[in-house]
C-alpha cells in the first residue's frame, strides 16, 4: 500500500491530500497531466453534421444518423498520444470539449468578450484557437441558426405549453416546474451493455442484428416492416462504422510502431495494434483488451449521442473475469501492471464540456456525467466486492482526478477491507467515492421496476449523479424536469401569483387568510404541485417525441436490451424500460417554511398571514425581529425533530403522489409509455433557483441560494450529522425511486487517525442501516472556514472540535477562528 502519512500523531491536518505520496510511475505521472490540463474545443463533429445530413437528405432520419456516425468516425482526426496504453479519443484534442450541434447564441455573445470569453474567464477555461474562432463566427453560427433541435421543438410547442412548461419561453421566467433542459439536445441517460460486447464482440452483435433483420423478411411479419428494416439497417451501418474506427487505430498504431525508435515504446505500439485489431469487434481475451474494448465503445457512444451522461454501470462485476484470467489464472500480468492499465483508462475519462459563462459561474468543475459503480450485492444477495473493486479504489486514491465519478455500493455484508479502503479515500478529500446504500437503494429500485424481481433489483447501478438504474434495459430520460418546491409554496402564499414578477401564473388555490387550518395550506400545495407537474409532463412528452424523431441512436440501441428484439430505436421506446426523471429542489426551505406557518400562524397564533405577507413582500427588510422568530422559534428540518421532518416528508409525498398519478394518465406520456420517477437533486442550481423564488417564511431572503438536495437549510442543522441522517431517513425516498445525495461535511480532524477511520466506517454502516440511500463527504477546507468568518449567517452549523471541546465555529471570537484556520492549514501544532 502506498499510503505514507508521516505525521500520524497530530490531528492538526489541513488536508490529507498533501500528505499522500502516490506511487504511480513516470508514464502515469505524464499522462495524468492530460487529465488536468486546460481543455481545448473541437469542431470536427459540427463539420461532419453540417455535411452529412445534407448529403443524405432523402434518407429516413435514422439512416441519416447512422451515416453521420459512419462519416464522423471515418473522418475525425485520430491520435495515439505519448505514453498511452489505452487509446481512442472522443475528439481530436488531448483533452477536449466536443462542440455538438445546438443553440450557440450564448457562445456567439461570449466569444471574444473581455470577461466572459471561455479562454479568459476565471473558471472552467477552454482554449479556442484563432482559426476556430473564425470558423465559429463565419461558418458555424450562421449555419445552425434556426436549424437546431431547440428550433424544431419550439415550432411544435403550443402557446399554452410555452407559457407553463418552459421557463425559457414563458412570460414569467420563474415558473416552478421546468422541462427546459431537454429543449436543445438529447440529454438522455443511457447505459450500454459493455459486458455483452466483451463476450460476443461487435461482430456478435452484428450477427444478432442480421438474425432479427431476417425475421422481418418472413411473410408472417406484417407490421412496421419499413421502420424495422430502416432501424436494423441503421444499426448495421453504425456497428460496422465502430469496427472500422477501431481498425483505424490499429493501423495508426502499426504505422507509429514502424517509425518508433525506442524499442520499449515500439513494442507497446505493436501490442496496442494487436489489441485494437481484436476489440471491440471480437470478444476480449484479457484485461488489456477488456479495458480497451469498454473505452472504445464509450468513445463511439459519445460520438453518436449528444447526451452528457454515459455511465459504466457495474464495472467491477463485468470486468472481474478478465482480471482474473490475466492476473490470477494465466498470470500474464501482475497486479501493478493491471493497475497501470486501469489508471490509463481512468485518465482517458477526463474529457470536458464547454458550457456558458452563466452556467459555469454557478456550477464550476463539472465534468461529463461519467459514473462507475462498484461493490454491492450479487444477484443472489451475496457480497459482490472483488479484486477489481479494490483496484478501482486504489486507482482513485492514486490519481485524484475528477472522472470517472465512483460510486461504492455498500450493504450489511460489505467486507471491512473494501469499506476501509473507500473510507481512506474519503480522507483525501476528493469527494470520492459516493456511498450508495443497498438497504434503501433496493427499495427504491423496486418502486421503479415493480415488474421485476429482487434478483434484478440488486443489479442496479448509478446513472448520473445519484440516479438508480437497471443497466442496459433502461432508457433513462432522467434530466427531464426540474421543480422548485419552494416556488410552489410561494404560489400557495400568493394564491397563484409569482412574487417576483407579480403575474398570476398558477391556479387560484385560495387566499390563505381564508384557510381555517393548516390543512388548507396542504390542499393548496397539493393542487399547485399537480397543476405544474401535469404541464411539465405535457411539455416533456412533446420534447420526447421530437427527440425520438430527431436524434434516434442506432449504435446505442444495439447495446441496449429491447431495441434489437423489438426493432425499435432506444429513443422511441425500444428499451425494455423507459423512465423520466423529475428532479425536486428546495426541499428544506419549503419544509421549514411550512413548519413556520403551521406553528406560528395556526398553533401558537404568534403571527398573522397579513404580517407574514407584508414581511415577505418587503423581503424581510425592516422585519428583522419577526425573521429571527421564524428562524429560531420553530424547529427545523435536519435536527431529528419529527414535527419539522414530517414537513419534508409531506413535500416529497406530494410529489410522489403527483408522479404516481401522471403514470396512470396515458395522454401525459409519449406514445410508447414509460414511467416517471423522482429524485431530490439540485446540484449547484440552488444558486440559480434562488433567483426564481421570492423570500420565504423560514427567513429565506431573495435571491440567496436554496438548500441543496436533501440537506437542511444552511446553518439550521444544529444537532450534528447523526441528527441530519435521522431526519433524512424519515423522507419517503422509496416512493421517489430515483434517489438523491446527502452531503455531509467533515473537518479533516474528524477523520485523522486510524481510529477515526474505524469510526467513519461504523458511521457509514449505521447510515446504511438507518435507510439513507446516498451520502458523500466534503472535507472542510480552510477556504471554507475563511468564508464562514465572512458570512457567519450561512455557517451557523459548522462545528469544530478540539479534543472533547466542541463549538460552533461562528460562535468563536475572531482570534479563535483564526486559530482553527491555522490548525486546518498547517500541519504543525499551533
Amino acid at each position, binding site marked *: 500500500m502506498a499510503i505514507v502519512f508521516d505525521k500520524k*500523531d*497530530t*490531528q*492538526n491536518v489541513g488536508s490529507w491530500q498533501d500528505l499522500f505520496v502516490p506511487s504511480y510511475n513516470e508514464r502515469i505521472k505524464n499522462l495524468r497531466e492530460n487529465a488536468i490540463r486546460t481543455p481545448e474545443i473541437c469542431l470536427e463533429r459540427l463539420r461532419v453534421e453540417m455535411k452529412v445530413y445534407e448529403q443524405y437528405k432523402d434518407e429516413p432520419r435514422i439512416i441519416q444518423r447512422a451515416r453521420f456516425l459512419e462519416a464522423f468516425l471515418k473522418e475525425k482526426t485520430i491520435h495515439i498520444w505519448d505514453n498511452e496504453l489505452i487509446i481512442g479519443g472522443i475528439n481530436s484534442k488531448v483533452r477536449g470539449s466536443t462542440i455538438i450541434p445546438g443553440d450557440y447564441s450564448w457562445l456567439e455573445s461570449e466569444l471574444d468578450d473581455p470577461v466572459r470569453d471561455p479562454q479568459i474567464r476565471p473558471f472552467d477555461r477552454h482554449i479556442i484557437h484563432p482559426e476556430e474562432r473564425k470558423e465559429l463566427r463565419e461558418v458555424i453560427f450562421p449555419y445552425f441558426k434556426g436549424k437546431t433541435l431547440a428550433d424544431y421543438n419550439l415550432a411544435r410547442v403550443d402557446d399554452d405549453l410555452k407559457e407553463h412548461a418552459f421557463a425559457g419561453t414563458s412570460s414569467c421566467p420563474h415558473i416552478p416546474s421546468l422541462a427546459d433542459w431537454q429543449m436543445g439536445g438529447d440529454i438522455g441517460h443511457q447505459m450500454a451493455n459493455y459486458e455483452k460486447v466483451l463476450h460476443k464482440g461487435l461482430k456478435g452483435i452484428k450477427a444478432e442484428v442480421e438474425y432479427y433483420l431476417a425475421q422481418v423478411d418472413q411473410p408472417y411479419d406484417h407490421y412496421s416492416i419499413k421502420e424495422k428494416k430502416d432501424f436494423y439497417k441503421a444499426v448495421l451501418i453504425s456497428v460496422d462504422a465502430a469496427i472500422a474506427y477501431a481498425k483505424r487505430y490499429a493501423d495508426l498504431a502499426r504505422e507509429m510502431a514502424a517509425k518508433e525508435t525506442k524499442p520499449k515504446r515500439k513494442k507497446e505500439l505493436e501490442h496496442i495494434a494487436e489489441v485494437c485489431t481484436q476489440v471491440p469487434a471480437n470478444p476480449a481475451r484479457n484485461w488489456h483488451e477488456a479495458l480497451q474494448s469498454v473505452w472504445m465503445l464509450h468513445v463511439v457512444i459519445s460520438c453518436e449521442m449528444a447526451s452528457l451522461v454515459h455511465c459504466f454501470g457495474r464495472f467491477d462485476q463485468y470486468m472481474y473475469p478478465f482480471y482474473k484470467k490475466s492476473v490470477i489464472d494465466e498470470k500474464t500480468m501482475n497486479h501493478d501492471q493491471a493497475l497501470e492499465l486501469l489508471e490509463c483508462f481512468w485518465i482517458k475519462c477526463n474529457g470536458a464540456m464547454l458550457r456558458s459563462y452563466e452556467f459555469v459561474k454557478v456550477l464550476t468543475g463539472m465534468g461529463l456525467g461519467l459514473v462507475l459503480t462498484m461493490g454491492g450485492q450479487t444477484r443472489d444477495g451475496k457480497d459482490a466486492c472483488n479484486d477489481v473493486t479494490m483496484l478501482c479504489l486504489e486507482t482513485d486514491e492514486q490519481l485524484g482526478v475528477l472522472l470517472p465519478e465512483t460510486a461504492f455500493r455498500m450493504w450489511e455484508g460489505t467486507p471491512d477491507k473494501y469499506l476501509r479502503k473507500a473510507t481512506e479515500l474519503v480522507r483525501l478529500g476528493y469527494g470520492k467515492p459516493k456511498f450508495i446504500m443497498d438497504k434503501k437503494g433496493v427499495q427504491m429500485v423496486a418502486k421503479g421496476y415493480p415488474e421485476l424481481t429482487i434478483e434484478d433489483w440488486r443489479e442496479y447501478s448509478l446513472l448520473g449523479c445519484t440516479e438508480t438504474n437497471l443497466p442496459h434495459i433502461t432508457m433513462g430520460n432522467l434530466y427531464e424536469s426540474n421543480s422548485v418546491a419552494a416556488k410552489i409554496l410561494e404560489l400557495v402564499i400568493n394564491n397563484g401569483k409569482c412574487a417576483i414578477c407579480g403575474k398570476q401564473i398558477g391556479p387560484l388555490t385560495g387566499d390563505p387568510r381564508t384557510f381555517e387550518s393548516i390543512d388548507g395550506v396542504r390542499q393548496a400545495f397539493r393542487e399547485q404541485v399537480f397543476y405544474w407537474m401535469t404541464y411539465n409532463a405535457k411539455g416533456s412528452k412533446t420534447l420526447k417525441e421530437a427527440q425520438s424523431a430527431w436524434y434516434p441512436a442506432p449504435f446505442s440501441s444495439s447495446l441496449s436490451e429491447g431495441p434489437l428484439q423489438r426493432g425499435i430505436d432506444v429513443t422511441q421506446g425500444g428499451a425494455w424500460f423507459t423512465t423520466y426523471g423529475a428532479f425536486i429542489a428546495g426541499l428544506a426551505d419549503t419544509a421549514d417554511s411550512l413548519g413556520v406557518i403551521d406553528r406560528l400562524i395556526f398553533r401558537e397564533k404568534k403571527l398573522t398571514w397579513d404580517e407574514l405577507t407584508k414581511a415577505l413582500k418587503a423581503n424581510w427588510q425592516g422585519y*428583522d*425581529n*419577526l425573521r*429571527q*422568530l421564524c*428562524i*429560531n*422559534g*420553530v*424547529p427545523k428540518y435536519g*435536527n*431529528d*425533530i419529527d*414535527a419539522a421532518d414530517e414537513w419534508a416528508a409531506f413535500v416529497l409525498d406530494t410529489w410522489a403522489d403527483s408522479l404516481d398519478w401522471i403514470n396512470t394518465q396515458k395522454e401525459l406520456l409519449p406514445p410508447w409509455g414509460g414511467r416517471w420517477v423522482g429524485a431530490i437533486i439540485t446540484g449547484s442550481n440552488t444558486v440559480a433557483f434562488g433567483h426564481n423564488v421570492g423570500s420565504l417564511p423560514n427567513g429565506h431572503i431573495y435571491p440567496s441560494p436554496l438548500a441543496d438536495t436533501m440537506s437542511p437549510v444552511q446553518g439550521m442543522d*444544529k*444537532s*450534528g*450529522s*447523526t*441528527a441530519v441522517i*435521522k431526519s433524512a431517513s424519515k423522507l419517503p425516498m422509496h416512493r421517489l425511486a430515483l434517489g438523491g445525495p446527502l452531503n455531509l461535511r467533515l473537518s479533516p480532524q*474528524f477523520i485523522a487517525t486510524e*481510529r*477515526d477511520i*474505524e*469510526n467513519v466506517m*461504523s*458511521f457509514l*454502516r*449505521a447510515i446504511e*442501516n*438507518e435507510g439513507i440511500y446516498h451520502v458523500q463527504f466534503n472535507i472542510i477546507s480552510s477556504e471554507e472556514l475563511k468564508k464562514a468568518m465572512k458570512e457567519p449567517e450561512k455557517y451557523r452549523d459548522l462545528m*469544530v*472540535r*478540539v*479534543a*472533547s*471541546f*466542541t*463549538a460552533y465555529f461562528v*460562535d*468563536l*471570537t475572531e*482570534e*479563535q477562528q483564526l*486559530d*482553527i484556520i491555522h490548525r486546518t492549514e498547517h*500541519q*504543525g*501544532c*499551533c
Partner: protein
Amino acid sequence: MSFADWKIKTGGAQTPAHGDSRLVLSITRMTIHNGPGMRTLILFKGCPLHCIWCSTPESQKTKPELGVYPMKCIRCGDCIPVCPTKAISLPDGKLTVNRSLCNVCGKCVDVCNAKALEIMGHRMTITQLVTEVKKDEIVYKYSHGGVTISGGEPLFDTEFALNLLKAFKAEGINTGVDTCGEVPWKGLEPTLLYVDFFLWDIKHMDPEQHKKLTGVSNKLILSNAKAVAARNVPLYIRIPLIPGYNDSEENIRATCEFSRGLASVVQVDIMPLHHLGKARYDSLDRMYPIAGLALYSDEAILGIKHIVESYGLKCVIQA
C-alpha cells in the same frame, strides 16, 4: 421532545426541580473524543472544582446562568421592558446585562427572537435524557460507542447519577463517565456497577499545587482512582497540559508513575491547552484567567507523549 426542541419550547422558563432531574448544559451527538466509538456527550452543570484553565466555565456553577451574545443581538429592545430588575441596557447599541441586578429569571430570553440571550442550564429528567441518547443507538451499535456523561461534574449529584446510569444500562447503552474524581466514595461506589469506563482527570500530583489550580486538594481524587481501579473499572487517565502550571517533567513522571499503578488503566490521554473556551467567558462577562498563555509546539507534545509511553502506557494526544 429533543433537546433542541426543548430549548425552543421552554425558552428561559424552568420547569420546577424534582428528584430525577438535573441541569443540562448541552447534549452533543456523534463525538469521537470521549471514549470508544461514537458517543453522545451530555454536559451537566455544577462542579466542585474551579480550574483556572476551564474551557466550559458555564458548567461550574450549579444554578442556571444567563449567557449574553451581543454579536447576535439585533437591537430590537424587546428584552428591556420585560426585565423585572432593569438589568438590561443597550448603551451605544451594545447589549449589556448588569449581572449584579440580574436574577436569571429568563423573561428576557423568552422574548429574544435572535437568541442573543440564552439560559445556560435546562432541567431535564432521566426519561428525557434516555430518549435523547437512544436516538443514536444504531451509531453506537456499529461503532461500539454509547453515552458519556460529563460536565461540570456528572457525579456531583450522586443519587441522580446512579439512577441515570441505571436507566442507560437498562437500555443496553455503553456508559462512560468523565469525572474530576472529587466525589465522596460513598456516592461513587454504588455507580461502579453501571459504569463501563471512566475518563479520569489528573490535573496535578502535588496536593498543594492542585489546590492552587483547582480549588481543592487531590487527595480524594487519587484515592478514588485507586479504589476504582481495584474494582477493575477501566480508566482513561486524562492530563490537561497547561504550560508552566502542570507540565514539568517531574509532574508528568509522577502522574505516569501513579497511572501505571492502576491495574485497570486503558490509556493516558494528554490534552494540550487551547483557548477555544474564551468566547464562553465573554458571554458570561467573566474574565479568562489564562488569556494569552502560549500554546504548545508539535514537538513539545510529542516529547511529553514519549515520556508517558516510556512508562509502558498507551498515550493518545487529544488535540
